[in-house]
């Protein structure tokens, strides 16, 4: 499917932002997201192509406005819901509980 992810040859994206001595992850949630992705992949709940296609369907403006691991969060949620592993209600409900408990 054509889409904003098909970036080869696009112009006007600006300079390349090179970070010296970059760490593997920039935040704890990125680490957890990486581990979740790999664990569920290893568990056979989706393959990498399905997961990538989940990301490609997140919508152009959203794709451009978010970072790499935020793409993964979106792809992961799409996979989990479409595979019937979790529902959107469960996820939203748990987020509300966690927000209430933490703040």
């Amino acid at each position, binding site marked *: 499917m054509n889409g904003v992810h098909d970036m080869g040859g696009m112009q006007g994206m600006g300079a390349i932002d090179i970070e010296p001595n970059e760490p*593997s992850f920039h935040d704890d949630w990125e680490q957890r997201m990486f581990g979740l992705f790999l664990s569920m992949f290893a568990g056979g709940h989706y393959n990498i192509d399905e997961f990538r296609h989940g990301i490609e369907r997140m919508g152009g403006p959203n794709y451009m406005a978010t970072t790499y691991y935020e793409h993964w*969060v979106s792809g992961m949620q799409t996979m989990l819901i479409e595979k019937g592993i979790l529902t959107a209600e469960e996820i939203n409900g748990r987020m509300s509980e966690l927000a209430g408990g933490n703040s």
Partner: protein
Amino acid sequence: MASYKHTAALPDTVLRVKALESLLTEKGLIDPAALDELIDTYENRIGPRNGAQVVARAWADPEYKKRLLDDGTSAILELGFSGVQGEDMVIVENTPSVHNMIVCTLCSCYPWPVLGLPPVWFKSAPYRSRAVIDPRGVLKEFGVELDPDIEIRVWDSTAETRYMVLPLQPEGTDGMSEDELADIVQRDSMIGTAVVTAP
């Protein structure tokens, strides 16, 4: 324009990841301790030092180099490296007249077993969009200016194939041991956005 150097995630994102982890743990689909281990492996044990060892071996052993260029996946496995995102490895060799670069314009595919996880710039829109239409301009941003006579070949990853560049061995390093050679091979030279220089 969004910044791809990640610092502050939306609070919503942090909560969402926590929610997914807690729900999947409750359902017995993941084990948080196994997640810790996976994170540690990719953060601390798999990285460009692996690729540097492959390059050093190829420089030191012409027979190995032949096998590496012929069947990258098997030759890399000889050194004990394999796994996710390295199932179909193709090694592209730099020569005095050809310089290779790798990119994944569609996604951010990267050969994890030999290079570890990719830097943010490799996954960013500026690199993915421009590597294929202005490789010399991209190289300039990395401080690399190649002679105009040198041909640049850009390899765009497919859903399966992962590329790694075999950089040109710098002159005057023939007498070095494999370990010493591996020390001078930096990550970007195996992506093709740097060249290896003698110490």
